């Protein structure tokens, strides 16, 4: 079976405020694959996700990122999202004064519009959000609250998962999705992630610890240090790191 590449990153170099963070990064993720990137703190893991998603303030100095064969680096952050890239954030941002439903409605309709689909009317939208929310234990009360304001760590992650289940992205990046979660919350998040594994959708899990990978088992594991991948393997690599730590890889340079 031939694999269809979804995300192709070649020899990527990127800097933030004149400091080079990503140094010759290569990675290809095919349709349906789940990759994990593990790395020590300060390795530039979050920079990588921000660069893929087009956050302002990051400058790509050389290399390429293609998504479904299209050059991502020329696209705005919103167009990347509309193409099907979803960033599940380590620290979801609080937006006072904007209700979750308002936010979700703008989001889903912006994506639909991009794909020349009619906007959802309020009834259709509310029905869908309530149904999806119910699966994640998100009640109507939570949907009325301002986005992430006063949410617990678990609630924030559930809202991220809800957004994902509504937007149905082709590719999702989980940036330290397990940080600040207790075991129960972690299980909810992992369930949500596993629910999205349908053999077609791809994922990139960025994490410091192996913890999450016990629940969401990746197809590939990469060790990321000093701005590039230093070792790749299967799920056993994660267990190895959990046992031996990152010291062996950071000393390599």
């Amino acid at each position: 079976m031939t694999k269809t590449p979804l995300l192709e990153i070649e020899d990527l170099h990127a800097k933030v405020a004149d400091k080079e963070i990503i140094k010759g990064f290569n990675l290809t993720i095919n349709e349906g694959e789940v990759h994990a990137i593990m790395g020590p703190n300060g390795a530039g893991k979050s920079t990588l996700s921000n660069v893929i998603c087009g956050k302002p303030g990051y400058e790509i100095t050389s290399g390429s990122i293609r998504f479904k064969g299209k050059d991502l680096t020329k696209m705005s952050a919103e167009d990347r999202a509309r193409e099907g890239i979803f960033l599940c954030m380590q620290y979801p941002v609080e937006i006072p004064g904007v209700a979750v439903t308002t936010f979700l409605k703008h989001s889903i309709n912006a994506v639909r519009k991009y794909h020349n689909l009619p906007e959802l009317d309020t009834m259709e939208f509310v029905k869908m959000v309530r149904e999806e929310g119910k699966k994640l234990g998100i009640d109507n009360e939570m949907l009325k609250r301002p986005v992430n304001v006063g949410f617990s760590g678990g609630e924030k992650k559930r809202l991220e998962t809800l957004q994902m289940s509504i937007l149905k992205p082709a590719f999702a990046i989980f940036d330290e999705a397990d940080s600040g979660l207790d075991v129960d919350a972690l299980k909810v998040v992992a369930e949500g992630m596993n629910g999205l594994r349908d053999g077609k959708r791809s994922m990139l899990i960025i994490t410091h610890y192996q913890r999450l990978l016990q629940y969401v088992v990746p197809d590939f594991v990469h060790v990321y240090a000093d701005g590039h991948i230093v070792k790749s393997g299967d799920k056993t690599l994660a267990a190895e790191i959990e046992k031996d730590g990152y010291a062996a890889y950071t000393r390599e340079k």
Partner: protein
Amino acid sequence: MGGLVQKVKLFGEYIPWLQAMRDKGALTFDDLGLPTPKTEAWKYTKLRDLNTDDLVIEPSNFLAEMRVTAEEACGCHHEDEGCGCHHHGEGCCCGHHHEEGECHCHEEGHVCECQQKLHVPFDAYVIHFEKGKMIPPFPDFPRGVEVMNLMEAVITEDAKEYLGKVADIKLHPFAALNNAYMEEGIYLCVHKNVKVDKPIVLINHTKSGEENIFFNIRNLLVLEQGAEAEFVEWYNYTGAVKSRYFANVVNEIVLGKNAKLSHYKLQDEAFKANHIALSVVKQKADSNYHNFCLQRGANIGRNEVKVLLTDENASAEVDAAYIMSGWATLDTTTDILHLSPRTFSSQLVKGVVGGEAKGVFQGKIHIAKDAVQTEGNQLHRALLLSDTAEIDVKPELEIFADDVKCSHGAASGELDENQLFYMQSRGIGREEAKQILIDAYLEEALDKVKNPEIRAWLSDYAHAPQE
């Protein structure tokens, strides 16, 4: 001759007390002159852009009306039939001049142009003004609510007790001018314990003309003991956007014991026009006054509210929102005087400033010597959308009493890049994301509007893109 000082013939020059007030206004303005950048109360308001030289004052409607009545006017105007929007001296309400009998305004289904444009989207008693002049008829008010044009209330002397006695013109050149031209406006009196069932809306609609007109509106609102009302001012404009008219408004408001007034205002003037307004409110014991003003139009827009809490347990909330771009200056000035013990005030003002515009907030809380156990709070916040936008804030606390609670705060900031990126990463376009954040920012202030219908109406204007 143009300008702010013109010789015009006004109604009722034979009424000594009225004429004395006008003369005093003219003399005071002559003494004070226009504020300069050195005038403390006006130093942030860019009055050099006022351009008054070619302003024209239109002839009095009251004097014209007598003439019109005598001559039966054009023959196609009718207060009792047709659209009900009577337009003096301009021919037909459809804007055209017709030969007698050719007007189609009363044909079935015809809706007057100005009514189409200025539909009040909630149930209300609506009083129409056009270019600063009242357009009869009045709606039918319920028992216990008395509304007249101001000159009528001068003749009946209903207005005599308070007119010119609430607003102090000594230090306010534009209020002095308003005195000098005192003629148009309404007198509203809500009798003891009467609660008006619907908001009373005063719409001033300015349509573009070839001349830059200058008009003054003076309203006197009296709520007797235990009376309750909602009063809405709506300044609206249609026509060529370059019209540079000048609206100068003064409201004098008296709240009797335990009276309650919600006073809302939408300032949506043409972007080259100027709008300067002063509301002075005198409150008796246990009364409550709530003012909310949304400014989104005009080149120079100033909304000044002065509240005198003269008796115990009187309370006032003075809230506002403004949204502006281009080169406008929008000024919100408040002066809350706690003159008696146990009086309460709070203020929340939020603004959004873009382009090369300038927002001004001057908020003064004065607590008199004996006004103990008083509480006054004030908060101003502004969102700056560009590097060239400017905001000037001058909070002033004058506290002469002990045992009071008083606070003020001011903050300005920019749109949060992390919030913008978060929304973009969910597919929401950057410009749309900005608008969502701006709307959310103003929502906190709009939340202060208690009447949900009026809130929704103001909200639509706060969130609509500016021309």
